[in-house]
Every structure is written in C-alpha cells, then in structure tokens.
C-alpha cells in the first residue's frame, strides 16, 4: 500500500538557482568555522523524515514542555518501531522556544531553512503559535500545533498551520455549558486570567450558558503577574451557584488554597479547567478544598474503569501510571489532559504523509491537502484520547471532552461530552487560500 521510493543517488528536490549555488558556496566556506553554519543535506527518500519540534523547555511553559517532549519521543519511537512513515524513520529535531513568540518564530525558521525539516510541530502557548505561524506560512512549511487555542479555527493564521490533535478552547468551553447548567446551577461567576485565553473562556462560555438558559453573573479578570488572589474573592456576587475558574501559571495552588480560606465550608459548586493543575498533584497540600469540585479534562488523568485499551497502551508507551504520574517517579505528574495532542498529531502527520505519498519538502503542499481531506478519526492506538472529527476547512479537530469530579484523592470522570456538543459555525475556509 505504501509506496516506498528509494532513488540510489542524491538529487536536489528543486532546481539549483544561481542564488542557491552561491548560498551553498558561502555555506560551505563558513561551515567549517562556525558550528551554527552546518549545512544539512537536502531531504532525500532514504533519509529520515525530519520533524522540527518546537518545545517549551524554558520560560513559563516549561512544565508542559517536559511532558510534550516525552510524549512526542514516545510517539516517534512507536512510529519508527512500526516501520516509520512511508518506510522512512522519523527524526525529531527538538529546540527550545523559550515560551517566547519571537524565539518561536526563529525556531520555525531554523527548522525550515537550517535543518531542512519536513514539517514543524509542537508548541502549546498561543502567543508562541501566533508569533510563529506567519513565518511558517511564508516559508511554506506545514506547522502542526498542539495548543488548544482558537487561533487556528478563527481564521487568524494561514493554510500551513493546522491543529489536528487537540480540540480548541471555543469548542471545549461550549461543550461544558449544557452539563454545568443542568447539574451545577444556572448562575455562574467566572474567574479567569486577563489574557486572551481567559477572554475566550469568558466570551464563549457566557454565550453557551445563555443558550442553556443560564447566566454568567460575575466576571472577574485576574491581572497578569498577580500572585495573590484573596482580595478578588469578595467580588464574587451573592447568589452564585457555580464558580468557574480557569487560571494559568504557577499561582494556581495559591488560588485554590485562598479560595478555601475564604469560603470555608460554605462554598458554591466549583467547576474549573484542569489547565492550571496540569503537572500538579491533586493531593498537594492546600488543594483539599477541591474535594467534590469538578474539572474539565482533555483526557482523564486517572485511569478509569471505562478507559479504553488504547489509553492503557498509550500510558504504557509514554511511561505514565494509572494516576497520571511518571512510572519512574510518582511525584512527577504529567500534563495528561493536553499531551495526548502531541501523540495524536504525530500520527496525523504520519497518516497525511502516507496518503500524500510524501517524499520530501517538495510535497509539502500535497501533505496539507492530504491532512485537509481527513475527516473521521476512530479511537485507536493512534487516537487514544478518543474518536475525533477533523474539519479540513478550519484546520481544527473536534473531540470528546471529559468532566471529572475530585473524590478520594482522584479525578473521577462523571461525564463525557459528545463530539457534536463542541461544534460551531465555520469561521474560515483555509482551503480557499493558495498553497
């Protein structure tokens, strides 16, 4: 089925222009002197498929970066063990983006022009994605992001940027509203960071709640750089049934603890997004107050009775135990709700490359078209989080979401949304843009 072409001799993918010849000359002249000037051979059919992996190793995203890294390596290993892509091994070229949009763009450039990577992939934080995407589009290198931001589907980016591995925030938030309204209460107060990400939560959840006959009665935006939250709690209006919280950054433990100190035993229902507690043990001192509260999870951290064999397989391969911690260190908690996106995205890249008959950077446009034509993804080893539906026009995938309740020191899934719960009207048709 997979056609493997292995020409015997090197051949440049595109024609050699005068400039490129000069470039090569200059490159050769300096490559011996400067380590940064090493010229990489053009991709050829016998060589590995190079996947540039933009990773948050330093900066505020480092907790996520570590686990994105592990998941990606595990997925690449699995793909290579089972024959690679089009018979060629996958090589992951990882580089730190410092969780910074400027450096992120530079790293994408480096993948495209220095390493001769076939595709770029990886990063989580939206500002890094948005800072890098224009460069990916200009360099015409497919850029697969695992960010859960709405930036891809909103139409802000370009045809070369895709998010096939994780549902976007608009869809996530919208699919939570019916359950929250039906089970927790209709009057919601939202506490969110005064970031674009927080504003997305505010806007999409408010709209979705209104559609359910509910109402968001309090909107409390926490400024960036805040490290103490107690003084904001009095702004929570009386009559709040549900407190909806989404925080990003290391301040979350403080947030929860102070919430506990503020409310004591008389608390409203609490519903939160796990984002802030990724890589944090739910049994950490100070988090006792979360007992009985609810969380959105992209993928349930604790193995559930109803978990699939695919999930078990995925856990084993990445090295995560049934509590979501590293098998080597039970104190090392994964970012389980998000990192599956890396695993699944790599498998989508594989699927796309194989159906496009991808041979090298000259086939990047074909790869984009091949991925755009994907629709259904069945739950499988390649998609352990569950079945998904990819929208080729908006470049965004839609999947199931989970709601878990904290109980007995675990997160127990109480609801799984239908994929359709997260659908919304297309806001862009990237396929109409030129490749």
């Amino acid at each position: 089925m997979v056609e493997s072409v292995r020409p015997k001799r090197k051949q440049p993918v595109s024609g050699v222009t005068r400039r490129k010849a000069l470039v090569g000359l200059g490159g050769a002249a300096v490559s011996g002197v400067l380590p940064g000037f090493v010229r990489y051979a053009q991709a050829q059919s016998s060589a590995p498929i190079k996947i540039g992996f933009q990773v948050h190793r330093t900066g505020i995203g480092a907790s996520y970066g570590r686990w994105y890294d592990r998941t990606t390596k595990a997925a690449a290993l699995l793909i290579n063990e089972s024959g690679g892509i089009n018979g060629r091994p996958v090589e992951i070229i990882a580089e730190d983006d410092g969780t910074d949009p400027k450096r992120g763009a530079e790293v994408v450039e480096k993948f495209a022009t220095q390493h001769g990577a076939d595709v770029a992939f990886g990063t989580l934080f939206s500002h890094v994605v948005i800072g890098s995407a224009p460069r990916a589009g200009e360099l015409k290198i497919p850029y697969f992001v695992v960010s859960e931001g709405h930036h891809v589907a909103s139409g802000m980016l370009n045809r070369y940027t895709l998010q096939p591995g994780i549902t976007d925030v608009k869809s996530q938030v919208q699919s939570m509203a019916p359950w929250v309204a039906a089970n927790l209460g209709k009057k919601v107060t939202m506490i969110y960071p005064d970031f674009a990400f927080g504003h997305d939560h505010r806007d999409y959840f408010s709209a979705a709640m209104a559609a359910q006959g509910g109402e968001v009665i309090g909107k409390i935006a926490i400024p960036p750089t805040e490290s103490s939250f107690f003084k904001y709690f009095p702004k929570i209006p009386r009559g709040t049934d549900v407190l909806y919280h989404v925080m990003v950054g290391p301040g979350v433990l403080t947030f929860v603890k102070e919430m506990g100190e503020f409310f004591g035993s008389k608390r409203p229902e609490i519903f939160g997004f796990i984002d802030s507690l990724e890589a944090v043990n739910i049994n950490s001192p100070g988090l006792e107050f979360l007992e009985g509260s609810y969380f959105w999870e992209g993928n349930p951290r604790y193995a559930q009775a109803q978990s699939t064999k695919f999930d078990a397989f995925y856990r084993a391969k990445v090295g995560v135990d049934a509590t979501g911690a590293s098998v080597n260190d039970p104190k090392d908690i994964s970012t389980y709700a998000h990192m599956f996106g890396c695993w699944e995205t790599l498998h989508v890249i594989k699927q796309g490359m194989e159906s496009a008959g991808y041979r090298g950077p000259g086939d990047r446009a074909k790869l984009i078209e091949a991925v755009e034509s994907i629709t259904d993804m069945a739950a499988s080893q390649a998609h352990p989080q569950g079945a998904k539906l990819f929208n080729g026009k908006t470049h965004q995938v839609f999947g199931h979401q989970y709601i878990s309740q904290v109980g007995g020191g675990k997160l127990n899934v109480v609801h799984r949304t239908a994929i359709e719960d997260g659908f919304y009207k297309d806001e862009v048709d990237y396929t109409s843009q030129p490749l």
Partner: protein
Amino acid sequence: MDFGPYFLLATLEGAVGAAVLALTALGLSLVFGVMRIVNVAHGAFFMLGAIIAWWVADTLGAGPMLSFLAALIISPLAVGAVAVLAERLILRRLNYNPESTIVATIGLLYVIEQVALMTYGPDARPVVAPIDFRVQLPWFGYSGYKLLVIAASIVVMLAVWWGLTRTRIGLMMRATQFDSETARAFAIPVDRVYGGVFAFGAMLAAIGAVLVVPIQQAHYLMGNDPLLLSFIVVIIGGLGSLRGTVLAAVIIGLSDGIISVFFSPTLAKIIATLVVAMILVIRPKGLFGTQSA
C-alpha cells in the same frame, strides 16, 4: 460583601504583601545604598531561598513546624553563601562598576534560573505552613499563617534595625554607605563590608521567600515580580533610607490591596503603577530620600 469587611480584607492582604516586600526590599536597599550597585539577581536570590526551603522541607520529611524552622535557618545561609561567592568571583573583579554590574547580575540571574530549572524543575511546589489555623471573622475566614508572616517580618525588621544602629558591624556598614573612601581611611575593611552586605541582602530576600513559600509555592520564575517591586520600593522610599524603604513597602503593599477594591483588577494595577511613577516625578528623591541618586 459589604464595603467595610471588604476593605478590611483588602487591607489585610495588602499588609501580608507589604510584610514580605519590606524584607526583600530591605535587602536590596542595603546593597543599593552601601555598594551603589543595581543587583538584578536579587529576585533570583529570593527564588533560590524559596526552592531551597522546599528542598529542606521535602528532604527532612519531619512535621510542618520542624521542617519550616529548619528551612528558615538553612535556606538564608545557603543563599548567603551563594551571594558571597558571586561577590568574590564577579562583582569585586568588576570593581562594583554600576553598568558592568548590571550585565553581570543579569548573567547571574540567567545562571541561577537555569540551574533551578535543571535541578528543581519547572513545576510549582508547595511547602506546608507550620501552623494550620484559619481565623474565622464574621464576614470571611482568614489564614492564621498570613498573620504570622506579618509578625515574623516585623520581628526580623526590628532585629535588622537593632543590628544597624546598635552594633559595631552596623556602624561600619553605615560608615561605608556614607562615604566608602573615608571609611577606608578609618581602617574599616570596606571589601569585607561589601561582601557582608551583599550576602546579608541576599539572606533577607531568602527569609522573605521562606516566609512566603507556604502561601505562594516555590517556582523557578517567582523572583521577577519581587525584584521589580523591591526596586520600586527602594527608590520610592528614598535611596539610603531604611525607614523610607519599610514605609514605602507598606504604602505600596497596602495600596495594591486597597486600589483593587475600587477598580477592575488590571485597571487597578495600571493605576497603582502610574501613581507610583508620579510620586517619583513629583519627588524625584523618593518620599524620604536625602541622598541623590
């Protein structure tokens, strides 16, 4: 919540912030005042204090009170040792040139942050508070530990004040601050005073960090905000005025809490920031400054 209790709550929160800020800023103020250098790595010392506190508590595994007390002793000492090393190996060789010191301490900041990331990791980790006591007021509950932080900070500051005004070492420090050339002429070992001041400043930051870690968790990037706030406090208070530093910390801590009552949070931060800037515009030497910058 009614206005009165809300105001009380904001004031309490402001006071806790001020207590920690005052300690950190006091450390910076000493370094700034005596050595006339901008130590960009001061926040990194703060962070280092917090993660060492976590490490001590985690390694000891004793009860919360014992672990906390051990951290309160070990962490400042360790941070002070790092500071002495930095002072000897780097700052002294730069002859405390103000501009070179900025670059060198930025470098130091990067090194400390990266080492923290590689050893401690990117996650935020909590230390259990030594006392678990919630004060239930008629309108809201409040952490007993936070009240303890305020008290502890006052005790440390009184001790520093006593040390500076009533001991020989304090006298040498003040003499050096006043005029290092003359101090040298009076056989004060200025080099050693500099080393001591730099270490002591770092230790004060570390004490502030140990106090804050049960409230805020240790994280490798946690030093940036204390650094900025400390700078602001030192300048607003007036360079060289310890009393001014402490008062400015109280003013800034409290106003941060109280302004948040009246405005939306981010707007409150913008306003508070501009107010501080305007204070300096109107009083360029700070509220209690005698020396010019």
